[in-house]
């Protein structure tokens, strides 16, 4: 799959107005999103790469492909977990031990009246984004992407098994709009307070008001994107970028949507 997108920077004083403008344009109420994002870095498992012994039965072509796969670029990937506002600053379910797993399936807040955040039941999605394509003639950011659903709960073990280190995590808050094929995500990045980097994802979330802004001025990023199933189909790719340009024209008086700097979206691990 391919993602085509346009970006704009929205200063904080314009945020409220833009929300209303987008709500009018898309004829829908904004869907508020809060997402935990964990960043994982791929690493080469020692002893795997470059080993070509016992490969007599491999054909030359296969061998090349295997080598390319093993020695190719390494990427950062994100694991995204949707959370709700009440998950922040809440405590873990107290009677976790006495409750059987699955009992709280229908009733996510358990028997206790205060909301609680249960890391073990957090759903996750793996999202991979390539570095945007270089030298494309069209004025949109186009990059290869893929996503997959992961098992609930602790993902670090599974990710380790696939050759990924946990690096860091942050939170994205924003509002989502849908305009025909285009998803419009007006968001900003929040950091955890304290700044002490852990080497594991947090099991508890601090209160939302304690989160610090990544961008000190509090400005938002507006991302408009379309996902195309088959990037080899030039016709659909063109349609997608045409739709994005149409949106850019419509929003011209409010924000300026433009292509992002390619290298700032580099996901390769050096």
């Amino acid at each position, binding site marked *: *799959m391919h993602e085509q997108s346009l970006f704009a920077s929205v200063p904080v004083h314009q945020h409220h107005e833009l929300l209303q403008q987008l709500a009018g344009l898309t*004829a*829908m109420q904004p*869907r508020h999103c809060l997402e935990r994002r964990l960043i994982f870095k791929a690493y080469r498992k020692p002893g795997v790469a470059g080993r070509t012994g016992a490969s007599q039965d491999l054909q030359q072509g296969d061998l090349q492909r295997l080598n390319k796969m093993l020695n190719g670029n390494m990427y950062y990937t994100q694991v995204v977990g949707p959370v709700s506002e009440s998950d922040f600053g809440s405590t873990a379910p107290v009677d976790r031990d006495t409750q059987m797993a699955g009992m709280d399936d*229908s*009733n*996510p807040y358990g028997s206790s009246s205060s909301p609680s955040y249960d890391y073990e039941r957090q759903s996750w999605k793996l999202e991979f984004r390539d570095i945007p394509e270089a030298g494309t003639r069209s004025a949109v950011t186009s990059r290869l992407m893929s996503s997959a659903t992961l098992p609930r709960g602790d993902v670090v073990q599974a990710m380790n098994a696939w050759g990924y280190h946990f690096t860091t995590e942050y939170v994205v808050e924003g509002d*989502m709009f*849908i305009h*025909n*094929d*285009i*998803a419009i995500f007006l968001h900003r990045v929040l950091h955890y307070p304290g700044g002490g980097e852990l080497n594991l994802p947090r099991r508890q979330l601090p209160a939302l008001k304690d989160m610090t802004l990544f961008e000190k001025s509090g400005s938002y990023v507006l991302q408009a994107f*379309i*996902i*195309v*199933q*088959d990037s080899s*189909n030039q*016709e*659909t790719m063109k*349609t*997608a970028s045409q739709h994005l340009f149409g949106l850019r024209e419509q929003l011209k008086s409010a924000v300026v949507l433009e292509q992002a700097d390619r290298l700032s979206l580099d996901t390769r691990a050096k």
Partner: protein
Amino acid sequence: MADSFTLPLRPIPEKRDRPDTLPVEIAQINNQWGSFREVNEDVLRNKIAEEEEKDDLDEVGESDQDASDLDSTERLEQLYKRRAEITQFAMQAHMETMFALDFVSLLLSKQAPRQAETSMSPFLKQVAPLGSLNAEVVNPPPKPESKTKDISAVSRGWRIQNFNAAANKLLQAASRLETEVASETRYWNEVLAVKDKGWKVSRLPSEKQSLGVQYGFLEATPVFRDRGLASLRRAEDGALLLDEGLIPSKTCFVRVRVIQNGRLSGSSKPTRSNFNGNETIEDRILQARDTVYEEELFHELVREARAIASFGVTTRQNLIQIPASDDLEILLDLVDTDEDTPEPEHDISQQGTSLAEGLAHTIRILLAYAHRQNLRRRTLLPLPLTPKTRSVPEHQLIRPALAYIKHMSHVRWLQSLLNDLFGVLQSAGLKPPAYTSRVFSTARRRQTSPAPAVETLIGQFLTPLLSTFNGKILTPRGSFSVAIHTNLSLPPFGTSFDVSFNMPKYPDLESPGKLSHREEVEAAITHLLLLDVVFTVSSNSGLPQPESDKDQVKPSWEAIYPQHGELLIPSKSEKRKKMKIALSRHEMSLEIYTVRCIDGTGRGHWELPSYHSMPHTWKPSPIAGSTKQPSLMDYVSTNVSFS
């Protein structure tokens, strides 16, 4: 409007008594006769003489035409002469212009010598030095007193007249502006009133300078969504006009008619009564909204009807025919509100009307539900873009209602079947335990549904319908259950009866499972009850008899062919008594006869019936306890004792 608003800037030209002015006449003479300079007495005299001569010649010519022809040489000469004349005239004219030019140039040479010099003839330059001629304005002679007075009076009069006219125009403009302001105020007040009612007022996308009101439904099919916008125009007096463009302003609605046994038994009424004359703008907007909703509804109904043509639904241009159940047919059509023809009253039944009204409300509610589903679908994260377009599935409008009608019809049928059968059994003195029915037992409530309660409620209506019937039979620990599933939204379509038996006495009796025809269900249940009766008879006849018969060895019935309802009294003799029980939903008949078969196992012709008793039948009597019939058990036991 601009025409009526001009100030007269020129005095009205006065009428002349002479038709032509002098300059015009002079020009005319110049053209006709040449310059005045050449006119002198001799020329004029010659001319007159010539004219007289010509007249004479003409007279001669007229009298004698043949001789009038001039000689060719003479003609030629005349021609030359004329040409010479023309050239002469031209030369003369040229000379005159040159003179005039010289004169003007000399006059101008005082003021602009360089420029004037270029247009002077060389002769003049030699003769006269530049700037030797001057022109000056000469003071006109003083006008007489009376004339100045006249002039001032006239101009004063003119001025007064013009002031008056200007004042009038200004007053007119002021009053016009006043009415304009009043009508604008009225217009904007009405627009505000519309806006205060909660309608969305916005600029028209196609016509930037006019206002529009959005009354349509955002989630409707695009054709109808785009029609839900009308411009608010201003009439001359400022009243608000709703301009719906090319749409006919006729109001129409989807009429539901119920046909029972080929006769119209109910028809739905329009949702909103027709406005007559004094409608407000709010009414007009509401009416337009209703119309667009009804039209969309019918459009979607036709679309769905085509998709479910396999259920026997037929569509014509403006009519959908749905065979609902048994003798019930439903007609849907789009009719004008005012065209509503009075129906013949005598066939209209309360039930039919309420069914039609109920259906009419159902399809409208379901369309509103479909709109909500559209919104939900639209605001989900879009699927990846692919070249092929996804088709929009038909909304479920007819299908749930149809499923409900069909389901209810089946449930009623099963209820009546069971009532009939149990009635027959009761009339025979048997006491079958009552059955229980749970109609629409699917209403399972999902606990955590993010959708609002209304949508959850309607969502339940769209799920397959299920009703269950459970009952016990006379045989101990025996029971039956029938579950009716009706599903028209997902394959497999239609209704199925899930019939299961529990008959401990006949363990090899298998439950029929899923049946789809009523006849099969009737046969299966009747069969079960027949077995039940046979078993009851065979088990009860072996019970201890009353005191009087105690000394006798009591023969007892044995179910020999329970499937056929046949019982036999085993005995050593050749003649054996056989009993045949037949059960249907109308009656139960019992026949006892003697057979000569060896062991009584033969059937049909082989059993050689020798003695036929009259078959005894039990029918459920319409009036309870009207005729006292012996119960089945009494009848059986009396017959046994007679043997």
